[in-house]
């Protein structure tokens, strides 16, 4: 027993260290929320305050973001659980030879960078909208709709993994027995398979909502001129970090990239300051080849001066 004492000691020390890494940053961040200093910091401690919570609760932009996140989360839960369940049930029936290929395709979104999923979603729907001649006010350009689809493409795979794990313990004999006793397919599904899968449906729904709520990489591309809670926080964090450097708000950039400019107005002095910031920040400056453009309506909506504001100094540098 004595020979194992050092091992025990090291195990305990390692566990301690590991969980310090896991929880330390979060504890520190939570503590800074009570410090009155404007920059979140622990030392020097100024004074204990609850003011920041009040500020956050009264922030209308955060409230809007929260509302959008809730709507998107609900949509993603519905769509991903439906798709994930179908994907898992289908896997048990697909021809053995096609199974590997089917599995690879349907699991691939988990491994794809979120950025890629977001981009491919907006490009596809942009194309579709143009083919159908839809206007920028139509659903094809709606950030909430696109975000639900973009997020579901990979969250459905998470859900499917949960269903597959549960289905592995399912006794197919039960279904057969029910059918032999004269139940219809629909009855057997509703009375046997669905109750068996109920806990899995619950955990898949919770997981889908959490994954949707905290997603950033995909959402930041699909959300267009809206903001979710997460993108709103990201915008605040980035604006806070780049103090002195004037960023156009993220939502404005996205609106501009989609040709939805009128939804977002920017004061001329902001624009100039931002362009100066852009020059300082980037050692290199790509000239914008054909000028910015996007969206079927952008010609109508983008004032020429605005493009000049962005392009002029950059092209010169």
């Amino acid at each position, binding site marked *: 027993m004595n020979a194992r004492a050092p091992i025990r000691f090291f195990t305990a020390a390692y566990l301690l260290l590991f969980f310090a890494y896991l929880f330390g940053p979060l504890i520190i961040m939570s503590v800074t929320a009570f410090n009155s200093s404007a920059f979140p910091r622990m030392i020097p401690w100024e004074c204990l305050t609850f003011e920041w919570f009040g500020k956050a609760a009264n922030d209308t932009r955060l409230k809007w973001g929260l509302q959008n996140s809730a709507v998107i989360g609900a949509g993603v839960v519905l769509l991903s659980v439906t798709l994930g369940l179908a994907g898992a049930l289908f896997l048990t029936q697909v021809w053995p030879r096609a199974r590997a290929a089917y599995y690879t395709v349907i699991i691939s979104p988990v491994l794809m960078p979120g950025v890629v999923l977001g981009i491919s979603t907006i490009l*596809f729907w942009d194309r579709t909208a143009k083919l159908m001649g839809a206007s920028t006010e139509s659903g094809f350009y709606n950030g909430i709709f696109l975000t639900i689809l973009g997020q579901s493409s990979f969250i459905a795979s998470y859900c499917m993994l949960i269903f597959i794990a549960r289905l592995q313990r399912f006794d197919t004999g039960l279904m057969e027995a029910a059918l032999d006793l004269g139940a219809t397919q629909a009855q057997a599904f509703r009375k046997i398979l669905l109750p068996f899968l109920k806990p899995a449906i619950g955990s898949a729904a919770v997981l889908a909502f959490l994954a949707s709520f905290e997603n950033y990489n995909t959402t930041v591309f699909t959300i267009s001129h809206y903001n979710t809670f997460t993108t709103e926080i990201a915008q605040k964090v980035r604006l806070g970090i780049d103090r002195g450097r004037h960023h156009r708000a993220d939502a404005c950039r996205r609106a501009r990239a989609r040709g939805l400019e009128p939804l977002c107005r920017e004061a001329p002095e902001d624009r100039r300051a931002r362009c100066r910031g852009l020059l300082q920040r980037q050692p290199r400056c790509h000239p914008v080849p054909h000028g910015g453009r996007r969206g079927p309506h952008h010609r109508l909506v983008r004032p020429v001066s605005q493009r000049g504001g962005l392009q002029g100094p950059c092209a010169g540098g």
Partner: protein
Amino acid sequence: MGSLSRFYERNGAMMATYLILAVTFWILILIVLPQIAMIDFSLRFDLPPSKQGGPEDVYTLANYRFFIFGHPGNIDGYNVVDLKVFGRTLLAAVFVTIFDLIICYPIAYYLAQVAQGGWARVIAVALIVPYWINEILRAFAFRIIFGDIGLINTALKSLGLIDTSIDFIREDVALYAGLGYAYILLMIFPLYNAIESLDRNQIEAARDLGAPWWRIHWRVVIPFAKPGITSGCTLVFMLAAGALAAPQVLGGPSSLWFTQLIYQSFYEYLNWSRGAAYAIILLVTCTLFVLLMMRVFNVKLGEIGK
């Protein structure tokens, strides 16, 4: 058609229709067609809408050429900036993956083979809880620690150990710590799944035969856990290389992550075609790299469970 009618017979009309519709929608509308649209975009010039569909709207490799050679008339001959960012991103993602593997393996082993009953459950919950907190905020927490006037710098200064702040952000210390942190859970669970199914008797047999602890891991546990190690590493590598939130919050002013270049193409240069091309370059290179590593370590794709 025989198999289709058998499928309908087996599932009943309603279920069969639901299955086929849902799976088709998922594969076609959410996965395959968007990827095709992205490839299509990446192979076209970035034209203003008036010229789209006109005689100039032809397929081209210009966006990919730009990634390698930069602008024509470029002094270096190569697009040094973008290539450097790309190489650095891949290298850093490999580094983050190895870091996570090393720190997570002991915990996964402990959770799967050593910890018991309620204690094991406490540890599992403690692992999950930090991941209920938003990704952005997790990254921001590292900013608070490593920032210019962050915890470490202020503490060192007040102790009189340093005069000027150490720029952890510029040195990318904060970024690596934050990225490593972000994907711990994705490494632990595949490892745990693999190690958990190992029969304890095998470990005890090795111990009885006089193997030291490190050899038990090297010869028994690690070979057995290889599929889990592979899926963990694949997940962490792909997601770290494709991370956007952590580099945006923790990246230094002069160092960029490749995803940030993609983001810039979209929102600062408004060049969607180049953004799409860069996204494909990232996706294809990472996938090839993972496949290559699987071949090197002799793991088959089918062995990766989940």
